[in-house]
């Protein structure tokens, strides 16, 4: 699917058709074709443009890849607009490099926060990626992960047996390390909560999932709240958001919806995974506010509710770190999770340090939009180096922010952010430990 292929006339026609389809597309895309006044604000606020002087990474220039063709082929004045410099003819060369160009943007939406015209370039990035995907030119890791996910129901390709074994192992780890008896129920019907993390939490970031298991055990002790995981939907990660492949995004989220119905839960709780929550809350079948017999929330909403009631006692001396918090783009700007994790951290640790800027203005880690999982060239044409190189470069602003706090632990509640930030911290030999918020819950909670 991702093998580079020759760009022929039929391919160019396909690109033009998809671009001109915006004429009858959603309002947001139509507006973004019409409004940009090229003021340059987005470039000032983009971590990629701030770390790379090349013109092509200027967010307005990237969006112009689509806008220029839309104006040329979507308007009867296309040739006039071409003369004015706002429209241009399509070329095989440019389509060949679209995968590179649209995967240089992490879709963090920081530019939208500052744009005078309310333009969210990430939406045009996703449109560009959707076209790239339709041409079969998505980066290898993107299309391969989607294939595995469609085949197995999770991005890691874990079997049922591996999932069950991972849960059992984590419970044993909790017992060994902390002495608590916890259970990770699987496919239990009639529970209050279905919990879905990013499947990476089960393999790559087990401390987060152990913390979650302890958290739910604490809720059980407090008021008898019951929870379960689903063998058919234990992965909230969803690369359809990254590739612009809406059918995949819906298929994957449908698994979560079906599991909620099958198990008869009252609440779907998404774990430390920003884009999973954004899809579950805003974009997929689980997002329907009125039709679903369950509500969709995030684990921070749930934990914060209990925290506000004074349900938790923490021993802050158990956390031997000065801690700072990274706002994942999909939690902060895209779903409004700002204060809940902060309140938790401030209750759990004695030394919490805010990084600047933060919340809506937080800098992206450099690994958003699915970039964090890509290390090599991923069969993307004319990529300068590897995705790892690009990510480490794009993390410059984030690195400066983190180092300015002097913190020794970086809480980043998102599997993509965690991977990127772990690599960024190692790459720059900072000695800063990166982990989740619930990793610290596990350490600080008094059971």
């Amino acid at each position, binding site marked *: 699917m991702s093998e580079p292929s020759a760009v022929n006339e039929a391919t160019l026609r396909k690109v033009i058709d998809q671009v001109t389809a915006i004429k009858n597309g959603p309002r947001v895309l139509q507006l973004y074709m019409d409004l940009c006044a090229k003021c340059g604000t987005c470039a000032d606020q983009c971590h990629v443009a701030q770390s790379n002087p090349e013109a092509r990474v200027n967010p307005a220039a990237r969006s112009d890849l689509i806008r220029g063709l839309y104006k040329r082929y979507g308007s009867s004045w296309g040739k006039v607009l071409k003369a004015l410099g706002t429209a241009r003819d399509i070329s095989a060369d440019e389509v060949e490099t679209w995968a590179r160009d649209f995967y240089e943007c992490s879709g963090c939406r920081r530019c939208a926060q500052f744009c005078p015209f309310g333009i969210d370039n990430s939406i045009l990035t996703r449109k560009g990626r959707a076209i790239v995907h339709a041409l079969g030119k998505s980066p290898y890791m993107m299309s391969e992960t989607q294939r595995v996910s469609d085949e197995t129901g999770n991005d890691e390709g874990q079997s049922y047996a591996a999932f069950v074994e991972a849960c059992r192992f984590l419970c044993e780890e909790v017992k060994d390390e902390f002495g608590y008896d916890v259970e990770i129920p699987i496919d239990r019907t009639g529970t209050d909560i279905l919990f879905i993390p990013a499947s990476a939490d089960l393999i790559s970031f087990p401390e987060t999932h152990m913390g979650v298991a302890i958290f739910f055990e604490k809720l059980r002790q407090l008021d008898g709240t019951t929870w379960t995981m689903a063998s058919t939907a234990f992965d909230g990660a969803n690369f359809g958001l990254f590739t612009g492949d809406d059918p995949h995004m819906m298929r994957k989220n449908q698994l979560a919806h079906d599991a909620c119905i099958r198990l008869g839960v009252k609440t779907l709780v998404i774990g430390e995974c920003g884009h999973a929550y954004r899809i579950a809350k*805003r974009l997929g079948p689980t997002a329907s506010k009125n039709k679903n017999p369950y509500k969709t929330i995030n684990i921070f909403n749930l934990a914060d509710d209990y925290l506000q009631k004074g349900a938790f006692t923490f021993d802050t001396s158990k956390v031997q770190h000065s801690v700072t918090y990274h706002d994942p783009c999909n939690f902060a700007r895209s779903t409004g999770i700002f204060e809940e994790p902060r309140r938790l951290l401030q209750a759990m640790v004695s030394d919490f340090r805010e990084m600047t800027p933060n919340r809506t203005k937080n800098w992206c880690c450099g690994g958003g939009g699915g970039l964090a999982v890509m290390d090599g060239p991923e069969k993307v044409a004319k990529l300068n180096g590897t995705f790892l190189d690009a990510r480490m470069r794009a993390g410059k602003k984030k690195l400066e922010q983190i180092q300015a706090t002097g913190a020794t632990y970086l809480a980043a509640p998102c599997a993509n952010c965690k991977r990127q930030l772990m690599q960024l911290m190692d790459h720059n030999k900072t000695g800063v430990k990166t982990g989740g918020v619930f990793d610290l819950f596990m350490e600080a909670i008094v059971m």
Partner: protein
Amino acid sequence: MQTLEILIGRVLPFVTLAVLVLGLVWRLRRWNRAAVANVALYPAASNRRELIEKVLGEVAWFSSFRQDNRELWRKTWPFHVTLLVILIGHLRVMFAWPDRVLGLVMGPEAIDKLSLWAGGAVGIVALVTCVMLLTRRFVLPRVKEISSSEDVGVLILLLCILMTGNGLRFFTHYDVNVSRAYFASFFLGGEAPQNPLFLLHFFFVQLLLMYLPFGKLLHIPGVFYSKALLAKDY
């Protein structure tokens, strides 16, 4: 001069009006009919009142980048505000009723003084900030690399309008009664002022108005739509 007066003063305005109105209606209909997705950017408005406050706040203060791009804000906010004041001030040039309304609170001399000083000041500020906005297109690398002929062309057109407008104010004796008479009989084919600078000014203005529904000036109506899309979560 007579031919120019007829073309710019009696023929072109009807074309301009048709292009502007039909163009905007066509564009707004397209936007209004398009599907709306929830693309809220947080913190977002959770009810209509919050939404209106948020959008109007953004549009009035350019608040999204006021703190973080002072360089642009210092040029573009005064530019837009002075253009708005100039637009309002032109009501007095076109019609007699603004003087009657102002006459309720001030005398005719005070109205003339206000027009002279305030109108003169905003004309100069708009011209200076327009030059600054044009300059940044050639000086700032990140702006230069995305600027097209259209971006430069619109600013030059605005400069032409502001220069001819300031010229009329500062270098000619302009009688507002002549233009008021013209606009009062506009639809009956009334005679436009024969002043060549006026005709040039009027011509540039009409070019801008005809261009509005088709180019980047669409951000004037569009910003209300796009800011509302990002601000709305209900």
